[in-house]
C-alpha cells in the first residue's frame, strides 16, 4: 500500500531501497551470473617485478583435463595489441607505450598477466596454470619514482627515456618571486603513499559472445558501462551496437572500476573463439596486484608567507608513480585532478606546479577515491599547519587569514584552471570550532600536557572540485569523453515512473536519491519510481559514476527531464480540464486551475490520458516520456572543516582518535542518511591512509602487502564516532543547487588526522611524519626526539 505522497521527498532521510537485496544476499553481482555451458578462465601472473620471458611452454597445460584453450601474449598480440589510455593530457609530451593484455616477451610488474587458461571449471583452469612452464631472466627493477628518472636507472619501455611518461606544468602569478621575497618560506617533502582500493567485490567478467549473431553480452563490475562498451569496441573491433554491457550490482569501486582491464578483454576473446560464455573472477590476492592502485606521490613543497601569516606563494614539484603502464585514466589523476586545486580554500595569488609522471615496476595506478584531490589537499593542509607552527600562530587563525572570503565567489584560482562556484569557508570553520568547543579543547590539551599526556588537535579546511564538467573542459584537459549525463523519465499509463540514468551507482544509494528527486518533480510517491542503471541495452548513453558526479550531474539531468515531462503534461492537463495552459499551475504536486484549486489533475491522470490519446491537444504527441542530456556549465565545489582530536600512547606510539568533528557543505541535501553514509565511509578511508594503509614493495618489485593480513584496512573498532554537521551553500549553476559528497570525507580526513598527531608531538619538536602513522613509526619519532 502506497502511503500518501509526502509533501517533500527531497531532504528526507529515507532508507536505502537497495539494501534489502544486498543484506539478504539477493544482489546480482557479476560473479552471481551463471550461464548454461559457461567456461572459466584463469590468468597466470608474473612472479617477478621485472624480467625477460625467455620461454613459455603451454603444451602440458593444453592437454590437462577440462582445458579448452590456452593463450600466451603472442596469441593475443594480433587480436588486441594494447590496452587503451583515454586521458591524453595535452602539452605534456605524454608517452603512451604499448600495454599488451598479456605480456609478450617482458614482464614489467609483479602480477602482470603472462598466460591464461580457459577450462570447463575454475579448478581445472587453476590446475592447468600450474602446468605452464615459463622461464624468466630477472632484470633489475625500479620501484621509486624519483630514482626511476635518474641516469642509469632500469628502463621499463624502450620508447620512454628515463621512464618519464610526461612532464606537466601549470602556474599563475609568479611563485618564484613570491618565494624569493617572502618573510617566511616553509619547505617540506611529503610522501603520499600507494594505496590498494580494496572494493569488497573483486573484479570479474562474464563474457557471452554469440557466434551466430555477432552479439556480445558482458557482465562487468564497472563504474561506467558505456565507457567500457566504447573501449571494448575500440580495442577488439566489435561494433558498438553489437555490445551490451551489464553492471547491475557492483560492490564498490572507489575509482578502481573505471578502467578497462586486460582480464575483461581476455574473457571476450576467449568467448568469441570458443563460442561459449567465459567467466573470470579475481581472488583477493589477485585483486591486490591486478587491479589499479592509488596515490603514490613524492612531493616537494615550498610555501611563502608574510610574517603575519598571509600566504603569498606556493611551489610544488611532484613525482607521481604511474606503475608499469598507463591505465585508462591514469595521466589525468596526478595532473588536472591534482594541480588545479592545490591552493585549496586559500586565496593564494602565486602558484606553480610541476608534475613528473613516472613509470615504475609496480601495478598501474589510476583514480582512487578523491583521485588527485586528496594528494593536493593533504599537501596544502599540512603546509598551512607547518606555517602556523613556524609563526607560532593558531592553525585556525592562519586559515581564517587566508580563506577566500564568502563575498569573493565566483573565485578563479591563480592558475586560472578552476572557478569556484560558491563557498563560505569561514562558516564551516566557525561551526566546527563551536561544535568541538575549541577554546575548552585547547585548555584540556594544556592540562594533558602538564600531566605528560600527548594530545593533539588537527584541522582540515578543504574544498574539492567534483561533478567534473563541462564537456568542453574535459576536451581541453585531453579526457577522451564528455562529462555530461543523460536521463530518461518514462511515466507509465498508471502513473508509475521509470527513470533511466547514465550514471552507474555501485553502493552509493542513488536508486533511492534519484527516486526522491522524481517524486517531488512529478508529484508521485517515492515508491512509485524505479531507477534503472548499469545496462547499455536499456540506457541510451551515459558517462558513469566517479568524481562525485552522480547526484550532481546525473541528478540534475533527471530533474530537467522531469521538468520537460511536466511541460508536456501541463498542456494535456489543461486540455483535460478544458482551460488554456496559461490558466494551469503546478502546485502541491498537481496541475491546478488557477483560482480554482479544487479542479486538478495528477501526473497519473495525465499519463493515462496521454497513452489512450483519444483526445490530445493540438500538436501534442501521445505518450509521456522525456529525455535530457545535461552538460553542466561548471564543476561544483563542496567544502568543509574537519577537526580531529587524538591522544598518543607515549610507550607504544599508538594513535587513538578521541573525537572527529566534520562540518561539510554540499549544498542542499537530497537524503541526509545517504550523505552521512558517504561521509562515514569517506572519512574511514581518509583515516585509513593517515594511520593504517600502505602498499609496500621490496626493491625487486615484489608486493609485500598482498593480503588483508598485511594490508591494514581499518576495522570498525579502529574508527571513532563521527560528529557530523552541515552548512548549506547552494551551487548557483546546478538545477538542484547540489554539490557532490562521495569523496569529500576521504579528501578531508587524512590531513586532519596527521595534523592532530603532529600537534600532539609538537612539544618534542617533531614537525612532520609521513603517512601511515603506524605505532612503530610514531614511537620511533618520539624516541628519536626524546633523546
Amino acid at each position, binding site marked *: 500500500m502506497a502511503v500518501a505522497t509526502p509533501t517533500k521527498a527531497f531532504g528526507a532521510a529515507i532508507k536505502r531501497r537497495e539494501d534489502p537485496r544486498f543484506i539478504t544476499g539477493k544482489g546480482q553481482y557479476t560473479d552471481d551470473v551463471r550461464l548454461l555451458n559457461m567456461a572459466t578462465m584463469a590468468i597466470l601472473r608474473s612472479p617477478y617485478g621485472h624480467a625477460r620471458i625467455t620461454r613459455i611452454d603451454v603444451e602440458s597445460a593444453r592437454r590437462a583435463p577440462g582445458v579448452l584453450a590456452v593463450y600466451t601474449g603472442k596469441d593475443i598480440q594480433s587480436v588486441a595489441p594494447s590496452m587503451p589510455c583515454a586521458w591524453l593530457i595535452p602539452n605534456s609530451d605524454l608517452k603512451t607505450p604499448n600495454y599488451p593484455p598479456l605480456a609478450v616477451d617482458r614482464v614489467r610488474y609483479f602480477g602482470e598477466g603472462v598466460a591464461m587458461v580457459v577450462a570447463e571449471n575454475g579448478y581445472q583452469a587453476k590446475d592447468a596454470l600450474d602446468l605452464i612452464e615459463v622461464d624468466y631472466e630477472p632484470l633489475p627493477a625500479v620501484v621509486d619514482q624519483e630514482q626511476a628518472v635518474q641516469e642509469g636507472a632500469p628502463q621499463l619501455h624502450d620508447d620512454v627515456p628515463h621512464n618519464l611518461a610526461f612532464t606537466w606544468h601549470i602556474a599563475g602569478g609568479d611563485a618564484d618571486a613570491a618565494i624569493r621575497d617572502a618573510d617566511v618560506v616553509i619547505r617540506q617533502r611529503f610522501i603520499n603513499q600507494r594505496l590498494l582500493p580494496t572494493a569488497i567485490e573483486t573484479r570479474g567478467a562474464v563474457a557471452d559472445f554469440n557466434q551466430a549473431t555477432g552479439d556480445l553480452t558482458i557482465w562487468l563490475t564497472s563504474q561506467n558501462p558505456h565507457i567500457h562498451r566504447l573501449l571494448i569496441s575500440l580495442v577488439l573491433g566489435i561494433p558498438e551496437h553489437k555490445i551490451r554491457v551489464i553492471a547491475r550490482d557492483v560492490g564498490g569501486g572507489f575509482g578502481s572500476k573505471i578502467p578497462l582491464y586486460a582480464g575483461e578483454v581476455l574473457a571476450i576473446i576467449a568467448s568469441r573463439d570458443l563460442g561459449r560464455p567465459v567467466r573470470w573472477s579475481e581472488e583477493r*590476492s589477485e585483486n591486490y596486484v591486478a587491479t589499479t592502485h592509488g596515490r603514490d606521490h613524492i612531493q616537494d613543497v615550498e610555501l611563502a608567507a608574510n610574517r603575519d601569516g598571509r600566504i603569498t606563494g606556493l611551489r610544488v614539484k611532484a613525482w607521481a608513480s604511474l606503475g608499469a603502464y598507463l591505465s585508462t585514466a591514469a595521466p589525468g589523476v596526478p595532473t588536472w585532478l591534482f594541480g588545479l586545486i592545490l591552493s585549496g580554500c586559500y586565496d593564494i595569488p602565486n602558484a606553480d606546479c610541476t608534475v613528473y609522471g613516472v613509470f615504475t615496476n609496480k601495478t598501474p595506478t589510476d583514480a582512487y577515491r578523491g583521485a588527485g584531490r586528496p594528494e593536493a589537499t593533504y599537501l596544502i593542509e599540512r603546509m598551512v599547519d607547518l606555517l602556523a607552527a613556524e609563526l607560532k600562530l593558531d592553525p585556525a587563525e592562519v586559515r581564517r587569514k587566508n580563506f577566500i572570503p564568502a563575498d569573493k565567489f565566483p573565485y578563479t584560482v591563480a592558475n586560472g584552471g578552476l572557478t569556484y562556484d560558491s563557498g563560505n569557508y569561514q562558516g564551516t570553520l566557525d561551526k566546527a570550532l563551536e561544535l568541538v568547543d575549541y577554546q575548552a579543547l585547547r585548555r584540556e590539551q594544556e592540562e594533558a600536557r602538564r600531566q605528560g599526556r600527548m594530545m593533539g588537535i588537527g584541522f582540515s579546511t578543504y574544498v574539492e572540485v567534483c561533478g567534473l564538467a563541462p564537456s568542453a573542459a574535459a576536451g581541453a584537459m585531453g579526457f577522451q569523453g564528455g562529462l555530461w549525463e543523460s536521463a530518461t523519465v518514462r511515466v507509465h499509463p498508471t502513473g508509475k515512473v521509470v527513470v533511466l540514468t547514465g550514471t552507474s551507482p555501485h553502493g552509493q544509494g542513488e536508486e533511492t536519491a534519484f527516486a526522491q528527486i522524481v517524486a517531488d518533480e512529478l508529484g508521485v510517491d517515492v515508491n512509485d519510481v524505479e531507477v534503472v542503471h548499469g545496462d547499455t541495452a536499456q540506457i541510451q548513453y551515459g558517462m558513469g559514476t566517479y568524481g562525485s558526479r552522480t547526484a550532481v550531474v546525473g541528478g540534475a539531468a533527471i530533474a530537467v527531464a522531469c521538468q520537460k515531462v511536466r511541460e508536456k503534461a501541463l498542456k494535456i492537463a489543461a486540455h483535460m480540464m478544458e482551460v488554456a495552459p496559461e490558466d494551469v499551475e503546478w502546485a502541491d504536486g498537481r496541475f491546478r486551475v488557477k483560482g480554482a484549486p479544487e479542479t486538478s489533475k495528477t501526473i497519473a491522470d495525465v499519463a493515462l490520458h496521454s497513452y489512450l490519446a483519444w483526445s490530445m491537444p493540438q500538436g501534442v504527441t501521445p505518450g509521456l516520456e522525456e529525455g535530457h542530456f545535461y552538460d553542466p556549465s561548471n564543476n561544483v565545489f563542496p567544502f568543509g572543516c574537519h577537526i580531529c582530536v587524538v591522544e598518543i600512547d607515549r610507550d607504544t606510539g599508538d594513535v587513538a582518535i578521541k573525537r572527529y568533528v566534520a562540518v561539510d557543505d554540499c549544498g542542499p541535501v537530497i537524503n541526509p542518511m545517504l550523505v552521512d553514509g558517504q561521509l562515514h565511509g569517506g572519512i574511514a578511508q581518509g583515516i585509513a591512509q593517515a594511520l593504517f594503509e600502505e602498499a609496500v614493495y621490496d626493491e625487486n618489485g615484489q608486493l609485500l602487502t598482498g593480503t588483508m593480513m598485511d594490508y591494514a584496512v581499518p576495522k570498525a573498532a579502529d574508527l571513532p564516532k563521527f560528529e557530523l554537521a552541515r552548512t548549506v551553500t547552494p551551487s548557483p549553476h546546478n538545477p538542484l543547487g547540489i554539490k557532490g559528497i562521495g569523496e569529500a570525507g576521504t579528501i578531508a580526513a587524512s590531513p586532519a588526522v596527521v595534523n592532530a598527531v603532529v600537534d600532539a608531538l609538537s612539544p618534542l619538536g617533531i614537525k612532520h611524519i609521513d603517512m601511515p602513522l603506524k605505532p612503530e613509526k610514531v614511537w620511533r619519532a618520539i624516541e628519536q626526539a626524546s633523546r
Partner: protein
Amino acid sequence: MRIEGSYRFDAPPERVWAVLQDPAALAACIPGCQTLEPVAEHEFAATLSVGVAAFKGTYNGRVRVAELDPPHRYDLHVEGSGRTGFVKGVGHISLEPDGGSATQVKVVGDAQVGGPVLSVASRLVVPTAKMLMNQFFAAMQRWLRASPM
C-alpha cells in the same frame, strides 16, 4: 632471507659427509622430494612437493654442490620455482668434529625468495624454511642411525 641452523650427528665427520653427499639419502630425507636426478657431476634436478599452507605446491629446481672440501665444508646452490614463487640461494655447510665420535653440522644460508608467496606470506617464509631444514636434518640423523656402519 638469511637462515641458520646447527645440528649434531652421532657419527664422525667422514661418515656424516658421505651421507650428506649420498643421492639416495638426500632423496629420502629432503621433505617432499619426489625426484632427484643427477644431471652433471655434483648437480641434480629435483622435484619437490611442499604441503605447507601458503607454500603448497610442486617446485622444480636444481641443486648444485660446489667448493667441496671433504669432510669439512661445501656450498649448496639451490634454484627452484613453482606456482607460488621462486627461490635462489646458497647455503654454506660446515662439519666440525664434536668430541671423538660426533659432528656438528652448521648451515648458514642466504636466499632470495619471490613470487606470489611473498605477497601472501612474507612473514612465514623464514620460519617455514627453517622448519623444512629442521625436518631435513632430523631425517638425515635418522637415516644415519638406521644405516649400517
